[in-house]
Structure formats: structure tokens, C-alpha cells
């Protein structure tokens, strides 16, 4: 930029609850500054990820430099730094926010403030950002701007009377948003002559140029030919290109303090340029990296298996490809008695898990079987060792376990007041500990609970939706690991322990879960010549039991001239089913039985 001046730069992001119109507003802002035409937008920008468009959430960031001539006649460089809109990506959000001085808070003018709105505002606030409220969907007949303004002011404590009232969809009052950003968001500070200090807030992988970090420059300047250092990764790279997003990539001669852009430096792996990393020059480096860097830890795990065995290698290839763009996805090979060869994958959260599964199925055309999700437990042994366990089979014998700790989250639930009782019941059954409750207005309350992560990864969100007629909104953040009365529950079929069915479960939940599993197995295992006992056990004691009665009669009584072909087909079908069974001692267990226990489904 020839007319570089910190005064004319504004760095901002957009925060919102799911569906409140964040992506639409981002699109509209880019389009209205002439970055791209609507058609180009569709082709170049938004096609990046169908899934995001469909689900109304942002997974990878959309960042753009917008050149805007304001009403005061001056030309501004407005850097929009998009944030992923979901709790799973809280850390990524916080880093994106750290790259900005302000945040547009988009609130749906009819829905009002929701759980995620608050969570995101807290995040922005803790980064010291100026919060600029915007009322979206003002064109809807159900819009109630005055009430929502009061809500924003009461709950969030931000003055909102002047908030632009817009429709991102129709483009109504979009210019007001730019003016508001210029007026409210502070210009960045920083010294272009100081040693280089830049923050990576996202990265992506380009097949030809390698991993490309997206950076915000706080001090100094970076240009082609510089040797830069990734301070946490402790690696140096020679810069071959710097540029900005328009949102298409465009090379510039340099990026200076206050600006946002990308750099290319033949970096092989996105894991070398993780979000939160500090970039400086190899020569004349800064002494301290920027605060707050942490490696994203997977919190939720599940096994992904090919529905067809021959897809095993294809799944690995696909996971590797996704990992190029997603440093937080982990996977390792795993073998299951029931499902064969597959991968145990780690995700930041439930949504992250769902997105990866969907992308594998959709973009790579894979047919997957996903096991029920689990969390990672911390086990302290009697020898004082600390183990991280996410597969129950790796749990040491009971006598060597001193304690087991499980992850606990702090959740925030917003519901209309008629459903408070239902939500409290739900939280109770999920081992929740009540923290507090505030009324947002005369209709809605916000409840906070401590909940074991284990209790919400299964089907909490669906349960919440069904108990609040879809009105409940939910958000959580990781809080801590806490000792808990967790036990390993085993399942025995005909007195034989079947590894694949073992789970780690809270002692209070064990009986109910054990009963559920043996009931499901009873339905899924066909009757055989002998009665088959099914047991759930903790250590040596049986906590639930079912018996599959012996098959007494299985014969086609009538088999005359016209019945023979039909009878043969019937037997062929039975034979097909039998091929998919696994033998445990004298008992045959169909794959369906494993799936009914292991598979992630909503059926209760």
C-alpha cells in the first residue's frame, strides 16, 4: 500500500450466534466494496466448503482486505477477519480476535441474544476489543429491534441505541456498518520500524506452495526474501511471497505493522504454523512471543471404520488431506474385533467431529461407520504415573488405578422460562452442578451448569432441543479435569468378555447404561441353539443381565412344489446374514449387534 498509515486501518471480526447471519454479512461487506462480484463470490470464495454454507457455520476463516472510501472522503483499509462461529473452535476464535481491535456483534433482530452470542462477547471482551453491535434481519416481520437493543444493553452491557439496523440478505444499510467500524473501532497501534512481531490466526494448505499462515503484523514489516522464525515451532523459513486477501490472494511488496495478510515460505506442514504462533525475524528476533499460544488438544474421540474393508487406505489418505488444513485433527490406526481396521480420531468437539465425518463422506465419497464418541480420561496409577486414556481396553487393572479424572465443562444454557424446570431435570440426569441463573428479560433465563464433557458428547444437544421445543440454546467451555467415580464396565456374552463393548462410565450411570447395552444386544443377536446369557459387569460383579432364549423351532413347515424356490431364497438370505457374524466361543454375533452398541445414534 502506497498510502500506508495506521490511522486508515481498521481490523475487525464478526461474532454472532449460529444462524444470526455472520457469513451473509461478511459476503455482503466483501461484495459491496467491489472485492468480487456476486457470481465470483460464489465461484471463488464461497464454494470453498459446501458444508459451511449448508450448515450456516464457519469452519475455516474468510479473511479479506476491503478498500472503502468513507463519508469523510478518506480511503480506509478495512481488514475483516472472520472467526469460526462455534464453541469447538473457541481457541481459534480467541486468536482471531487477538488479531483485531474491534468486533461486529451481529444479533438477529427477532431471535435476540443467545448463548453463543454471550460466549463470543466475553471472548472479545477479554481480548480488549471494542464491540460494535449490529441488528440483522431487520427486514423480517418478526423483528423486534427495540427489545433486542434493550437485551444487548442489559445482558452484554454495550450501548446499542445507534446500532446499524441492517439486512445482510438484502443489503439494506450495509454502508452504515462500514461507517460504524471506522468510527468505533480504534486504529491499530504498532511500530513499523520495530523488530517483526506477527500473530498467526489461521493457516491453510496449498498443494503447490505448502502451508500458508495468515498473519496480523503488530510491529515491524515482512517482505519477500526475509527469513522468519516460528517461535513455538523453533523453525526458520525464507519468505517467498507476502500478500493480502481481496479475498482472492494478491501479492503485495510488504506487510507492515497493523496490517493483515499471508506469507508463503515453503512450509511443509500446517502443524508448523499453528494458530497462536508468533512470527518474528530470524535475525533481530523479538525476545518474548505473544501470549496465549497453546496447542489445540482434541477433546472428543471416535473410531472411524470403513463400511467396506477395502476403503481402509482411502480413509487414511482422506484424513491426511484434511489434516493438511486442520492442525487440530488427530488420528491413529485402531483395530476393533467388531469393525476390523479403522482409525481412532481426535476432534476439538462434537461439531468438529461431525464436520470431519461429513467431509470424509461427501468430499471423499467414503462410507463410514462411526463409533459412539468418547472423551479422554486422566488416570493416576498407584505408582503415581499419569496416563491419558481414551480406549477402555488400555485402562490398567483396577488395583493399579488410584484415581480417574474426567473433563468438566462450564455450560451456559438460554431458555424461555417455561422450560427452566425441564432443563434443570436434564442437567440433573447428566450429573450437572448448578452454578447460577439470571433472567435475560421477562421471558428468558440463562442457566449455568458444570457438566462432565462425557455427559454432553452423546446426545445432550438433541435432548435439550426436545425438552425445550427447540428454543434452548447451548454453549460450553472446557474448564478442568476433576476426579470422578468412574469405572470400567465390561460386557460378557455367554460368560465371555467382549473387549469391543467395554466402556468407561460413571458408577451412578453404570446400571442404566449396562441395562441399555444388554437390551440392545438381546434384540440384535439372533437366537441360537443354546440360551445365551448377556451380562454387564464391573470388576467381578454383575450389574445387568438378559438372556437370549434358545431357539426351539426354525423350520419351514410347508415345502411342496410351489415353495421350493422361495425357501431357497430364504436360506440364502440367512446365509448372507451369517457371513457378517463373528464367532465368540459358540455364540455368533452379527455386526449389527456391535453397531447397535458402538454406533453413534440418537435412539435412546
Amino acid at each position, binding site marked *: 500500500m502506497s498510502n500506508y498509515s495506521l490511522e486508515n486501518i481498521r481490523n475487525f471480526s464478526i461474532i454472532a450466534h449460529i444462524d444470526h447471519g455472520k457469513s451473509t454479512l461478511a459476503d455482503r461487506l466483501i461484495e459491496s466494496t467491489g472485492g468480487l462480484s456476486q457470481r465470483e463470490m460464489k465461484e471463488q470464495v464461497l464454494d470453498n466448503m459446501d458444508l459451511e454454507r449448508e450448515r450456516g457455520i464457519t469452519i475455516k476463516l474468510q479473511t479479506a482486505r476491503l478498500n472503502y472510501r468513507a463519508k469523510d472522503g478518506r480511503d480506509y483499509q478495512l481488514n475483516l477477519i472472520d472467526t469460526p462461529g462455534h464453541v469447538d473452535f473457541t481457541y481459534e476464535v480467541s486468536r482471531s480476535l487477538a488479531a483485531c481491535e474491534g468486533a461486529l456483534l451481529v444479533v438477529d433482530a427477532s431471535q435476540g441474544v443467545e448463548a453463543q452470542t454471550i460466549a463470543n462477547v466475553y471472548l472479545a471482551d477479554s481480548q480488549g476489543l471494542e464491540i460494535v453491535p449490529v441488528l440483522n434481519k431487520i427486514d423480517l416481520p418478526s423483528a423486534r429491534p427495540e427489545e433486542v437493543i434493550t437485551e444487548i444493553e442489559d445482558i452484554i452491557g454495550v450501548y446499542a441505541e445507534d446500532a446499524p439496523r441492517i439486512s445482510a440478505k438484502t443489503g439494506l444499510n450495509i454502508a452504515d456498518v462500514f461507517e460504524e467500524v471506522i468510527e468505533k473501532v480504534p486504529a491499530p497501534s504498532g511500530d513499523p520500524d520495530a523488530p517483526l512481531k506477527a500473530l498467526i490466526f489461521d493457516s491453510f494448505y496449498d498443494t503447490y506452495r505448502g502451508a500458508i499462515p495468515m498473519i496480523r503484523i503488530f510491529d515491524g514489516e515482512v517482505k519477500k526474501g526475509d527469513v522468519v522464525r516460528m517461535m513455538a515451532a523453533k523453525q526458520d523459513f525464507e519468505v517467498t511471497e507476502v500478500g493480502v486477501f481481496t479475498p482472492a490472494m494478491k501479492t503485495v511488496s510488504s506487510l507492515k505493522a497493523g496490517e493483515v495478510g499471508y506469507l508463503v515460505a515453503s512450509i511443509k506442514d500446517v502443524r508448523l504454523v499453528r494458530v497462536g504462533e508468533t512470527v518474528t525475524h530470524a535475525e533481530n528476533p523479538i525476545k518474548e512471543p505473544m501470549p496465549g499460544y497453546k496447542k489445540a488438544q482434541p477433546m472428543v474421540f471416535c473410531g472411524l471404520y470403513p463400511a467396506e474393508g477395502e476403503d481402509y487406505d482411502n480413509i487414511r489418505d482422506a484424513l491426511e488431506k484434511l489434516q493438511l488444513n486442520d492442525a487440530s485433527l488427530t488420528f491413529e490406526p485402531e483395530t476393533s474385533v467388531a469393525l476390523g481396521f479403522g482409525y481412532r480420531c481426535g476432534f476439538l468437539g462434537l461439531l468438529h467431529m461431525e464436520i470431519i465425518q461429513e467431509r470424509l463422506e461427501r468430499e471423499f465419497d467414503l462410507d463410514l461407520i462411526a463409533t459412539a464418541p468418547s472423551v479422554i480420561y486422566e488416570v493416576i496409577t498407584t505408582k503415581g504415573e499419569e496416563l491419558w486414556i481414551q480406549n477402555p481396553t488400555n485402562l490398567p487393572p483396577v488395583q493399579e488405578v488410584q484415581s480417574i479424572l474426567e473433563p468438566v465443562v462450564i455450560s451456559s444454557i438460554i431458555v424461555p422460562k417455561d422450560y427452566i424446570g425441564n432443563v434443570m431435570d436434564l442437567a440433573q440426569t447428566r450429573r450437572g452442578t448448578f452454578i447460577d441463573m439470571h433472567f435475560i428479560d421477562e421471558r428468558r433465563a440463562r442457566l449455568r451448569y458444570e457438566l462432565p464433557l462425557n455427559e454432553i458428547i452423546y446426545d445432550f444437544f438433541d435432548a435439550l432441543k426436545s425438552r425445550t421445543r427447540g428454543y434452548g440454546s447451548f454453549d460450553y467451555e472446557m474448564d478442568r479435569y476433576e476426579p470422578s467415580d468412574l469405572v470400567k464396565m465390561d460386557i460378557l456374552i455367554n460368560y465371555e468378555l467382549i473387549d469391543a463393548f467395554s466402556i468407561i462410565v460413571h458408577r451412578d450411570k453404570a446400571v442404566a447404561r449396562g441395562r441399555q447395552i444388554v437390551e440392545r444386544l438381546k434384540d440384535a443377536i439372533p437366537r441360537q441353539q443354546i440360551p445365551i446369557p448377556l451380562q454387564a459387569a464391573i470388576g467381578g460383579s454383575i450389574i445387568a443381565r438378559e438372556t437370549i432364549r434358545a431357539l426351539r*423351532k426354525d423350520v419351514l413347515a410347508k*415345502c411342496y412344489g410351489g415353495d421350493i424356490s422361495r425357501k431357497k431364497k430364504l436360506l440364502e438370505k440367512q446365509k448372507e446374514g451369517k457371513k457378517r457374524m463373528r464367532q465368540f466361543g459358540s455364540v455368533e454375533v452379527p455386526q449389527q449387534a456391535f453397531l447397535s452398541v458402538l454406533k453413534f445414534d440418537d435412539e435412546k
Partner: protein
Amino acid sequence: MMKNNLGIYIHLPFCKEKCSYCDFTSFCADEKTQSRYIDDLLKEVSCYRSDTEQRDISTLYFGGGTPSALSPFLLEKLFRGLPKQYFSAEEITFEMNPESVSLEKLSILKEAGVNRISLGIQSFADRTLDLLGRIHSAEEGVAAVHHIRQAGFKNLNVDLMYAIGEGYPVEESVRNLVKLQPDHISTYPLELYDHRPLSKILQPVDDALSAQEFSFIHDELIANGYVRYEVSNFAKPGFASKHNIGYWERTDYLGLGVSAHSLLGSHRHSNSLTLAAYHDALSRGDKPIEERVELTREDQAFEMLMLGLRLTDGVDLSLYRERYGDLSKGQKKSIMKFRDQGLIDRRKDRLALTPEGMNLMNLVLVELME
């Protein structure tokens, strides 16, 4: 091999009323429709004339539907129209239901050469008969047996149904049946079909009750001098159904009439399922064949086991080897296992199921299937 022997089955699909459980191809129709059907049937018979003329017809079977529902006039028309050769068969069976048994019809059958009657009594309890939608009473059932004997038929089968449901016990019916001394008894559990009205009223009977009722019937019949010769069939010595044994020994058979099935050498075929399609094909001068399947050697070998094991005498293994070669290693291993479990009995060179094995026949067959 008796390649020359042929069984003939003739399907007479008409009923006065359709029973609430029945899933067979059967229709309620007026005399005119029935008469046209007999015409069509006789056309089909002539389509096969050149094939049948060269063979020995060993058995002839008229099944339904309710063959006895045909009027005396149509019965005579049918018998007159069929080739004389058909009536040279050693065993000629005709199915009847009690309500349509009359001395007049019986004498027409006798005259034509029918020597075996199969009577669909099903039960001797009126409330069970009501439930099943049968249009005869227990008393009529008993009377029908007397009429048949009176008319001089020396070979009588009675069908009996069991496993109808809790509250519909079979014991009394079995005792009543035995008193009538039929020469042959076929006994079937009630099967419920989703699309038939009875399935709306009754729950399927659990297999333990079905096994228990069958075991009662079995013991009662054995005690009264009957021999079980097939999964569902019992007979006084010398009275086993030759026609039906033909199905299980895979003798060729020609099925005539709507929905009838045939086994001719290495192929099976089945006829049109509707009267209209059946009529249209024959009007064009075509055989009314709906589906034709060529059986591979493997198909035939498995059928020999699947069907032969239905007989208490089981399968002649030397004949099996002669036709299809030795059993596979896997099959032999399974047979050893089932013998240890008491499901299979291997005597000399015959392979047969034990009574327990007959109850669990599908388990055995699925493993013997390659």
C-alpha cells in the same frame, strides 16, 4: 434313475370364501369364470401333451384353492377333458373342504379314478374355525370324514393346524382327529401374513409354544400307530403320500394351472399368477410361464439336501455322490458338529435329521449351503 416318472399337479384356485389366514393363489368367482378356467387348463394340458405322452405319470394331484368347490358339472367337464393317461397314475389325490363334500361329488371323483382324498379340517374347535374364517363347523368336519369313508375311499389325509395362539389349544382337536382314524395326517403351524386379515387380530406364536404343541401332536400320533415320515407329515404304514415324496426326492413334476410350479430336468418354472395373465397367454397359444430358472449343478445338489433332509429317512449319500460328487470339507465338518449336537443322525450311507434337528432344520441347512 427314474427319469421317466412324472408327477402332475393341477391347481384349482377357486374357493367359496377366502379364509382369513390364507396366502395361496385362490379366488372367489362365478361359474362362468370357473368354466373358462377349466377350458384354459385343458389348453395348457395340450401344450404339454407331447412331453407327457412319453413319460410314466406316477401321481396326479388336484390342489387348490378348494378343488371340491367346483360344481359337479365342472368336475365332470374337467375329468372328461383330461387325457386318459393322467388317470393311469398310481396315486390320484383330490383336496376337499368339509362344507363342499357331498355324496354326489364323491361318486364323480370315485368314478374318475381318484383314490386319495385330502380333507382340510384344520381344527375340531368351532371357535378356532371361526377365527380362521373357515366356513365349516367341527361337526361338519366329522360328517365329511364319514361320507368319504362311505363313498369307499381307502386313503384319507386330514390337515390339522396348530400354533394358533394362546387360548386356542390344539390338544382336544388332536384327540378328536385320532378317533376318526385318517390314514394320513398333515400338521402345520399357523403362518401369519401381514397382508391377510388374521394378522390384524393375532400375534405370532412364540417358537417355544409352537415346539411344545408340535411335540404333543407328534407323541399322540406315534402312540396311535402313525409314523412321521416328513417334517410335517404322518401316515399309517404304507400311506405316505407318493406325490409329495416326489417333491422331496426331486422327481420331475409338471404343475398345471394358475401359479403352479414345475420341475422338469434341470429347470424350474412357475406359471402366471393372475387368471387374466394365464388366460391371455393360453389364448395366444403360449405356455403361461411367468418365470423360468435353470438350476446349476450346485443348485441341484443343495436342493437334494434341503429337500431330502425333510424326510425322516433322509438323503441317500451314495446317490448324492453319484450325481454331484463328494460333500465338501466344510459340509463334512458341519455335519460332524451337528452330529455332536444331536441334530444329525448318520446311519450307514444315509444322512438324516433327528427330531430335534428337524425343529432347527434352517440352522442346519444354512451351514450346509455353500
